[in-house]
């Protein structure tokens, strides 16, 4: 069997990739997809720790709720992207400067 540390290390690497993508990319769609990568990484860590402490199913149930919140976040986020595109005709995040100064 594979030690839990391997799964946690993979989860950290995926979270790192998602976070760097969120910070570097200015396409709002890609930023939202980077958030999904990070949420998936946390889900992997939750399920891996639940496999190590297998007396209860707390980690798996928590990752179930994370998936539900991710679905809600994707729906609202993409609606905001559509509204933003209707206003500015672009999906670049640095064009969202109505509240600037």
């Amino acid at each position, binding site marked *: 069997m594979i030690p839990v540390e391997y799964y946690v290390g993979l989860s950290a*690497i*995926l979270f790192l990739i998602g976070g760097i993508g969120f910070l570097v990319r200015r396409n709002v*769609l890609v930023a939202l997809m980077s958030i999904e990568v990070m949420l998936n990484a946390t*889900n992997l860590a939750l399920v*891996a720790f639940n496999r190590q402490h297998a007396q209860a199913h707390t980690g798996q149930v928590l990752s179930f709720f994370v998936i539900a919140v991710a679905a809600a976040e994707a729906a609202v986020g993409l*609606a905001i992207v559509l509204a933003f595109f209707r206003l500015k005709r672009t999906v670049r995040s640095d064009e969202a400067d109505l509240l600037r100064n």
Partner: protein
Amino acid sequence: MLNLLLLLDIVPGPANAAAPVPETPQGPWMGFAYFGFCAVLAVVGAIATVASPNPIRGAMGLLLMIISIAGLFLALHAQFIAAIQVIVYAGAIVVLFLFVIMLLGSDAQTPSDQRGRIPRFGAAALFAGLGLAALTLLGRTMAKPKLPGDIGSDFGSIDAIGKVLFTDMLVPFEISSALLIVAVVGAIAVARGKHGELAEKGAVK
């Protein structure tokens, strides 16, 4: 197919359904090969998601990563979460992203320029440094790896998780349904525009 799953230590065998899951007869190599395959695919998918200039390729990379992580969930005895991962993420969220990308057409791809390069890459370098520090700490505990313990035959099944969801976690479960309703109403209200922009054009009545 069942033989393959037995080899990968995914499902407990029928003969010892009540006993703890034994070590696979072929040794740990099959499990390590499966983990390495899924891990490499997940990292490749994540890099494709954040690095590809075309958002459609990014969505395909996200799909690859989601399916590989579902495979890892299977190896961790989380069959129900793996199914939910495929249905909700691959079936709903990625399709939603693809809908929006197709709706925006060629405007979904933004040309890259160098404005604001220093703060963006500085923040990313700081984040990468913190992440590498965390990985180094993890590598120090890797010297004495903890093997996961024995589990019962119903670990991760729909039966067991359903019991937890409808007894201990009943209140969060109901609240998450309210959250989803609010999110749907909010998404429609935001995407529709203020004071029914579409209604004036006769698109909706």
